[in-house]
């Protein structure tokens, strides 16, 4: 048999094989694209074409009923793991100049002398997000808001770069005969609380979560209470409210004390 006559209409085997393959193809197409979609309960198709497109995986927009819009300001910041990656020296320098107006509350090198949060070594994404949220009104604070609203987009980027560049307060937890709080180390899995460090930096940093070590106890307690009560709602899709709501008041006190411990030299520096 020569190759020529294999692919010939006179070859019965050829016709049969091609016929069977084409038949199977058609059958599976009809079953997969039309019969099976229609066999599903709970779905209605506008037309056979709709069924075929759906089965073939063409993305569709479903006209879902009018969403319930928030009656408060939600954060509009798009947070990604790669945001504000590599700041330039110029940006850090500009940030340093701008930061002079912040020093009175946040400290000359970003370590606060009062109960304002420390900013030194804070993740740039966390600073940037909070500044945007103060500006948009998603986070409200009578003292801080006026300073944020006057900042331009570039100012916020530069300030974030500068503060992130400053050396942060290290995690400092001298053994005082007390182990670290359970909730910090392990979270409370059955209450939907992941270990704090899985987002806040000790274990891993989820973009947008701030560094907490060395922050004042009063500040941490107030923020956790605000998340729990819903007074602070700028955390994206409730990720921090979900946690704070499940914490007991004792746990809140415990974590606040735990995170607030600072190395002695930095405490001295900030009280002078």
């Amino acid at each position, binding site marked *: 048999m020569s190759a020529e006559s294999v692919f010939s209409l006179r070859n019965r085997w050829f016709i049969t094989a091609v016929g069977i393959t084409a038949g199977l193809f058609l059958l599976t197409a009809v079953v997969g694209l039309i019969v099976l979609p229609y066999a599903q309960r709970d779905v209605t198709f506008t037309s056979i074409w709709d069924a075929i497109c759906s089965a073939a995986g063409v993305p569709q927009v479903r006209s879902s009923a009018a*969403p319930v819009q928030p009656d408060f300001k939600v954060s509009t910041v798009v947070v990604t793991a790669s945001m504000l990656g590599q700041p330039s020296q110029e940006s850090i320098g500009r940030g340093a100049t701008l930061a002079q107006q912040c020093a009175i509350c946040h400290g000359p090198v970003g370590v606060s002398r009062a109960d304002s949060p420390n900013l030194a070594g804070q993740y740039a994404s966390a600073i940037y997000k909070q500044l945007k949220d103060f500006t948009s009104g998603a986070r409200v604070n009578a003292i801080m808001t006026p300073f944020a609203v006057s900042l331009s987009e570039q100012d916020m980027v530069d300030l974030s770069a500068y503060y992130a560049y400053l050396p942060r307060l290290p995690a400092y937890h001298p053994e005082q005969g007390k182990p670290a709080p359970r909730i910090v180390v392990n979270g409370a899995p059955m209450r939907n609380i992941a270990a704090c460090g*899985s987002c806040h930096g000790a274990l891993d940093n989820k973009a947008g979560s701030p560094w907490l070590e060395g922050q004042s106890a009063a500040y941490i307690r107030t923020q956790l209470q605000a998340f729990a009560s819903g007074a602070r709602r700028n955390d994206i899709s409730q990720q921090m409210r979900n946690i704070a709501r499940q914490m007991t008041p004792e746990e809140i006190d415990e974590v606040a004390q735990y995170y607030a411990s600072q190395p002695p030299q930095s405490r001295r520096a900030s009280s002078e």
Partner: protein
Amino acid sequence: MTSSPHIHDDGAAVAARAERRWATLSIVIIVVIAGVAAFAGIHQATMPQVRVETADPTTLHIGGEFVETNLGSAAEPDGTVTVRAIGQRYSFTPQCILVPTDTPITLRATSSDVVHGLLIQGTNVNTMLVPGYVSVLTARFEKPGEHLMPCQEFCSIGHEGMWARVKVIDKAAFMNMTSNRRRLDCVE
């Protein structure tokens, strides 16, 4: 084979018979497997999702269907209930999902970061939440009660803390609640 001499006739016939039997057997196997898959697909609802829908994972919180105030259970005009939820490292929002008994439920969920899993214990609800896509499932709960809803897809270091609850309540009580709130959940 065309040039094989007559002595091999017997052998050729045996080979042809064996070949036919094996061919029949393999066709039967294929038909049975395809049949089982089709049966399971149609009768046990193990079909893939009917429609592919997309959602930008980075802007879910800003507006649209998955904005936080629109999450939870919504009573639809046709008597069914739509539940919307998102999975994120390391929680589901809403943290407690409230559904009525004896009502067709459509669950619409997506992820805002990495792949998560959504599994409701004691039911056949089990899907992946893939960032960028909306997972849609239908379900029906016969009895009131509470189910755990863990994330069943390792999503990073806080994964073991990612749980939600599903609370099934009497249909009448549920419908009563919808009269003063458009989206329901059981978060305390």
